[in-house]
């Protein structure tokens, strides 16, 4: 296959994913009892699009499977059968299979052994309506190749074609000459005559049609001639008659080729075979309304968000753009500094311009960053299906509530959040919510509530997963954590700290490890994923009332809200999201403990401290006034710095192009004075420090 086709295929596969999402969300709504025609139509269209593309690109398994889905959906949208749960389940199964085939590449080699049985089930379901006339459009597909051959092919030697176009023929963009050329291409034309049906100039009406053709041909099947006229036969008076060789109706018919073009004055008595066509001068235009259910159904937008038109852009192009704008921001702020120090009469006017530039660059930067933003609905949209399947499996009744689906997040952040979200929802269903019996016994409503919400809050996105289940039992957690050696026997923990233990590696509280939320390997991975994105996750829980998991994520990975600090004369940036509090070292109780190094007291707990000047081997003069308390994978640690300078949004520049990953650093940024500041990575600082080794 050539490159171009390969590229089109890739685009098609992308479109398939979008259509699969539409299918899934639509089917979910149908499963919940939404049998609205718009929904059914939307689902039908999605299946239909996949089928069309799949057959064009030669993805036969996908084409066949979607064909079967579409047949069942077509019955539903034509309201020949009700939308019932069994059928929706069947379609969802087919969808899963479709996804499997697509993931494997979509082509013949990606076929799945289950496909035949799923298709048989779909077929059976269609057959169950007892409506044979619409049995399947397998017949219709065949129709494509055979549709014109209504008449049995008749091997006749000569045909007489009379052709008088009506005005509509011309109104629809047809050209009689092209049709006649086509006749000549497939047959031997023996004679052709054009005549006008207009008797004189007075009767001439330019909006009417007067020209008539009478053509005699041989060596052709009648069906082939009819096929040429297939699309215009209602827009013209047409007759195609077989003629016996001995009684040729046209004068001089035997002449090799006789083209006789008559003008407006033409003698109209020339018409030989008085067919029906000849009895009228012209036919009045009567538009017959077409009744067609697809035209009825698809008139109004099915989903408002489909109206936003979009273009596809490769992510690296956008990233390049973002990078350039980042540079521009830096240049701008450098310029701004320079303008401050200019001592000149033009200074005021320069400052004014620089302020304009500052506004513009900020707007530009925000707009460009916006390009990478996607609504969180694309991550949320797969959850209803998950909850539906899981609640069936666990036999729990759940009301899944989604809120703030339009909240936007960076594409990469969003993509990397999908797995953690899925895991947290599974966990909430499996461990959080009780069974129906337990709920009734506890005096709660039968149906458990699982609520996901997303919102933007001061430069970050907050996602909450809340259930009204049994909550976390702190005693159990603590006992288990002690058993597993995660917490020392004599270690005292606050309630908050106990709750965070569910994120500790190797922790599982399910009485029986179920195949739903797995073996407890998930929660620590969930936290790691979130922290790697520069975010934070916290748990709040009340025994018997429910659990709330709060995830805080940065809006973007390219720009960071940073706290500037100075360490031995150097400026560093600490990500604000990881900072809990800043303490004054002199006012904080601190001491050195043999096993743990330096510790300080923070809200009743002892924190390990890391002196950043010695961590980064700075020999400059240092004051070490402040302790910045940061959260690293659930462990808190105090970073000792000299001063906090201010907060600033910084553009993250990766170091790994020039250096290998440097432990303790997340990247670098260029400050407004043109100097480079390094961005601290609290997690790797903690992990690579002696503190972690000691613990």
């Amino acid at each position, binding site marked *: 296959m050539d490159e171009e086709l390969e590229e089109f295929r890739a685009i098609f596969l992308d479109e398939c994913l979008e259509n699969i999402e539409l299918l899934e969300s639509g089917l979910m709504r149908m499963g919940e009892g939404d049998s609205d025609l718009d929904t059914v139509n939307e689902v039908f269209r999605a299946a239909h699009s996949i089928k069309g593309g799949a057959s064009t690109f030669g993805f036969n398994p996908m084409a066949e499977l979607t064909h079967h889905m579409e047949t069942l959906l077509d019955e539903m949208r034509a309201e020949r059968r009700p939308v019932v749960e069994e059928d929706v389940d069947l379609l969802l199964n087919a969808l899963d299979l479709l996804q499997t085939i697509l993931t494997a590449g979509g082509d013949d080699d990606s076929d799945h052994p289950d496909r035949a049985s799923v298709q048989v089930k779909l077929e059976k379901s269609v057959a169950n309506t007892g409506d044979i006339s619409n049995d399947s459009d397998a017949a*219709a597909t065949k129709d494509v190749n055979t*549709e014109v051959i209504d008449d049995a092919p008749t091997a006749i030697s000569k045909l007489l074609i009379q052709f008088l176009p009506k005005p509509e023929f011309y109104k629809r963009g047809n050209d009689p000459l092209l049709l006649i050329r086509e006749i000549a291409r497939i047959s031997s034309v023996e004679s052709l005559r054009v005549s006008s049906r207009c008797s004189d100039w007075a009767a001439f009406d330019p909006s009417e049609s007067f020209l008539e053709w009478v053509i005699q041909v041989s060596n052709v099947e009648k069906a082939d001639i009819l096929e040429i006229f297939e699309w215009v036969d209602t827009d013209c008076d047409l007759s195609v008659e077989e003629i016996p060789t001995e009684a040729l109706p046209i004068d001089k018919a035997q002449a090799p080729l006789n083209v006789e073009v008559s003008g407006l004055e033409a003698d109209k008595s020339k018409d030989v075979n008085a067919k029906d066509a000849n009895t009228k001068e012209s036919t009045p235009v009567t538009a017959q309304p077409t009744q067609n259910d697809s035209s009825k159904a698809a008139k109004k937008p099915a989903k408002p968000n489909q109206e936003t038109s979009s273009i596809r852009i490769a992510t690296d192009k956008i990233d390049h753009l973002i990078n350039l704008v980042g540079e521009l921001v830096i240049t701008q702020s450098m310029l701004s500094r320079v303008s401050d120090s200019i001592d000149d009469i033009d200074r005021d006017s320069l400052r004014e311009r620089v302020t304009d530039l500052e506004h513009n660059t900020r707007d530009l930067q925000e707009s460009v960053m916006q390009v990478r933003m996607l609504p969180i609905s694309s991550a949320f949209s797969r959850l209803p299906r998950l909850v539906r399947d899981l609640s069936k499996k666990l036999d729990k009744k759940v009301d899944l509530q989604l809120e703030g689906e339009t909240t936007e997040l960076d594409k990469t952040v969003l993509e990397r959040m999908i797995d953690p979200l899925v895991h947290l929802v599974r966990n909430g269903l499996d461990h959080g919510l009780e069974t129906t019996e337990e709920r009734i016994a506890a005096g709660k409503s039968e149906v458990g509530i699982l609520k996901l919400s997303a919102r933007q809050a001061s430069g970050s996105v907050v996602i909450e997963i809340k259930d009204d289940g049994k909550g976390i039992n702190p005693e159990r957690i603590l006992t288990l954590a002690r058993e597993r050696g995660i917490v020392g026997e004599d270690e005292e923990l606050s309630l908050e700290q106990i709750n965070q233990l569910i994120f500790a590696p190797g922790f599982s509280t399910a009485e029986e490890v179920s195949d739903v939320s797995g073996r407890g390997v998930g929660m620590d991975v969930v936290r790691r994923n979130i922290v790697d994105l520069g975010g934070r996750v916290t748990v709040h829980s009340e025994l018997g009332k429910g659990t709330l998991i709060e995830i805080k994520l940065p809006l973007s990975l390219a720009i960071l809200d940073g706290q500037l600090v100075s360490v031995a004369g150097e400026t560093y940036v600490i990500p604000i999201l990881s900072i809990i509090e800043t303490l004054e070292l002199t006012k904080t109780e601190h001491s050195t403990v043999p096993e743990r190094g330096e510790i300080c007291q923070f809200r009743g707990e002892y924190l390990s401290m890391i002196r950043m000047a010695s961590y980064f081997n700075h020999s400059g003069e240092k004051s070490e006034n402040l302790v910045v308390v940061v959260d690293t994978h659930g462990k808190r640690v105090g970073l000792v710095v000299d001063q906090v300078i201010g907060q600033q949004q910084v553009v993250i520049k990766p170091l790994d192009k020039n250096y290998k990953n440097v432990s303790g650093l997340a990247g670098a940024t260029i400050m407004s004075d043109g100097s480079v500041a390094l961005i601290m990575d609290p997690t790797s600082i903690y992990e690579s420090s002696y503190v972690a080794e000691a613990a």
Partner: protein
Amino acid sequence: MRVMIVDDSTSMRLIVKRTLKRVGYDMEFMEADDGSVAYDKIGEYNPELVLCDWNMPIMNGIDFLKAIREEGNTVKFGFVTTESTAEMRAAAKEAGAQFLIAKPFTEESFEKALRPVIG
């Protein structure tokens, strides 16, 4: 020749263009991803031929065709669609289409359908 391709699938628009190019037509292409968009743009584009999908999200092909015919537009119009039932062909014809090409199509299917329409 100015040709407007109306299909909600990008890949489908691309493959239609490619097929037409391979047949050897000298065409200038305009695209629309929905009947409603095509309806808004047809006056501006002023194409000589429209190749249109049947099923589209907001305005389907047949409604688009009916709408422009109602306004007296005589552009040559053909459907390129996955289904091709007798009823659809009849409806297409009645609404004023000149041909219907079924997907999956070949270069030949375009040649055959277009010859009587654009020569």
